[in-house]
């Protein structure tokens, strides 16, 4: 038997795995690089495909069913052709006006508190966290809560309760955008205003808020667009109505509700109207958002030059 030399002893020790052939290794790495690039492009295409499909079908099916009657008539009874969603459009307008009147002032004021008064304080952090919690509350739960709070007490569904539910849903979005926009206003501007002897409330309104106003308006429009399409909270609150109604204490129709009712109905005529309603809903959201952007860009709402 031959005594193992130092060399063979070393070989017995666990050695590192043999290096792969460098050429194969490079090919392997290149292959993976290209594979992942391909997968990323594929996933982007897969994500955009449904969006394009939704928008195309909306235009195709919705536009072919739109006519004047859609905007001027109330829903027709089952079996009758024609009819429209005029009362639902009015109802959506009323509910959204109520919601904006409630959600936007409270939201902006809370945002002002967070950015101008409560920066870094414990109360400020608590408000910020609570706003995020409120933002995450599912819309159906908001509907249930308002149902238990207002509808059960009142004894009937009402436009008012729908407006309150949507208004509460607007608050967190408006608050957080207002705060973030006010944070971007430079301190020097505030100091200049205060240095001239302007009282604090005046400097907040005329300097901070005014400088940040384009961003705040965008935030309000985002919140508006988000609640404009909400259906779930309205099921328990505004409930829907097949007839004209502008009474805040009565059930009222809303565009998303009517789309939902028509979509799950078994009638082709109603499916057609549901597509038209969806197209109108999306157009209303986009038009109102663009309109406010344009007005904010030139009118009295304009903030920085």
């Amino acid at each position, binding site marked *: 038997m031959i005594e193992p030399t130092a060399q063979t002893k070393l070989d017995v020790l666990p050695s590192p795995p043999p290096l792969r052939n460098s050429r194969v290794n490079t090919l392997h790495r290149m292959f993976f690089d290209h594979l992942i690039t391909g997968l*990323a492009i594929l996933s982007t295409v897969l994500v955009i495909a449904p969006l394009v499909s939704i928008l195309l079908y909306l235009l195709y099916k919705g536009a072919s069913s739109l006519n004047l009657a859609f905007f001027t008539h109330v829903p027709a009874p089952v079996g009758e052709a024609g009819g429209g969603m005029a009362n639902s459009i009015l109802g959506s307008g009323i509910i959204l006006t109520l919601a904006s009147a409630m959600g936007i002032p409270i939201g902006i004021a809370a945002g002002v508190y967070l950015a101008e008064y409560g920066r870094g304080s414990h109360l400020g952090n608590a408000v910020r966290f609570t706003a995020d*919690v409120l933002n*995450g509350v599912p819309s159906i739960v908001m509907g249930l809560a308002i149902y238990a709070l207002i509808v059960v007490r009142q004894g009937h569904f009402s436009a008012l309760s729908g407006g309150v539910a949507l208004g509460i849903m607007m608050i967190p979005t408006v608050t957080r955008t207002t705060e973030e926009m006010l944070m971007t206003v430079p301190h020097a501007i505030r100091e200049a205003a205060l240095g001239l*002897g302007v009282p604090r409330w005046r400097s907040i309104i005329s300097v901070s808020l005014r400088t940040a106003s384009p961003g705040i308006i965008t935030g309000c429009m985002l919140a508006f667009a988000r609640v404009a399409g909400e259906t779930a909270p309205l099921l*328990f609150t505004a409930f829907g109505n097949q007839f004209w109604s502008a009474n805040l204490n009565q059930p009222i129709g809303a565009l998303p509700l009517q789309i939902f009712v028509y979509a799950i109905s078994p009638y082709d005529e109603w499916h057609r109207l549901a597509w038209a309603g969806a197209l109108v809903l999306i157009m209303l959201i986009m038009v109102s958002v663009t309109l406010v952007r344009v007005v904010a860009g030139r009118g009295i709402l304009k903030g920085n030059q």
Partner: protein
Amino acid sequence: MPQLVVNDPGLSADPGPLQEQPDSAVRQYLKKRSPGKFADGAFGVTMLLSACSIFLIVALIVFTLAHGSKLSIHAFGWKFFVTSAWDPVNGDFGALTFIFGTLATSLLALCISVPLAIGVAVFITEMCPARLRTPISFLTELLAAIPSVVYGLWALFILVPVMRDQLGPALAKLFGWTGLFSGDNFGLGILTASIILAIMILPVISSITRDVMRAVPVNQREGMLALGATRWEMIRTGVLRNARIGIVGAVILGLGRALGETMAVTMVIGNRPDIAKSLFAPGYTLASVVADDLYVSALIEIGLALFLVTIVVNAIARLLVWAVTRGTPSRVA
């Protein structure tokens, strides 16, 4: 002697002549206009009250839900969450089918959308030519702006036929041996609901993943590339590994959104009592069933459970995202 000191121009900044000077135009204007301390205090208090009204709203929601579900909690106790009866006629309620439906659709939706969302985020932040970056991110954000009832409409008339006639049979043929695709295929059901949910939560996950990836310092990327890494190796070890906590947060945030989504799911899950229902199936029937107290109370208890679960899920997600993006400027949606 004191008079001498006061009048000494070397000690004080010569106040004498200044006092006699008339106020400047700005100061005169302000003295006339400014309502002073009272307005300042009132304004501050109004802002504080508005901020505190958010506490009030959340507290009111919790209280209302807790109060409203008292009847059902007393009647069923913990059994409510493990039984599957939903029988308004005999007054027997259990939430198990809804819990199962919600968990199944949400988790399946996450399985579908997480790889896609990360793929989109990687493409937009690391690979995309600068010209395409804005339009593509705009398009993915646009997905978030579509109301859920419109998603439901599209799913009901476009996706359901595809699932019934093309995708469904193909899946049954390929994976029939797993037993997951047995039974009749109407196109409605958990898989269709998961797909539509996946599309809806995708923009949430991908936009936050993008923020988190952007928070990774450029040095990391440059270092990896300088060592000879390919782009994928750079993304994997330099970017994704550093951003992983935030990406987990984004996924959990998407989960929170999926758990609470109602309308699109209601429209395509096929609310039949003999298959697993969504958590929200009874929401629609509420209007048609004579609303007796126990029924409403059971519904509200489900709402309370959903509320608590989403709060916990969202709080965890926010903390994780915050841990990564802290220090970088936040992006307004």
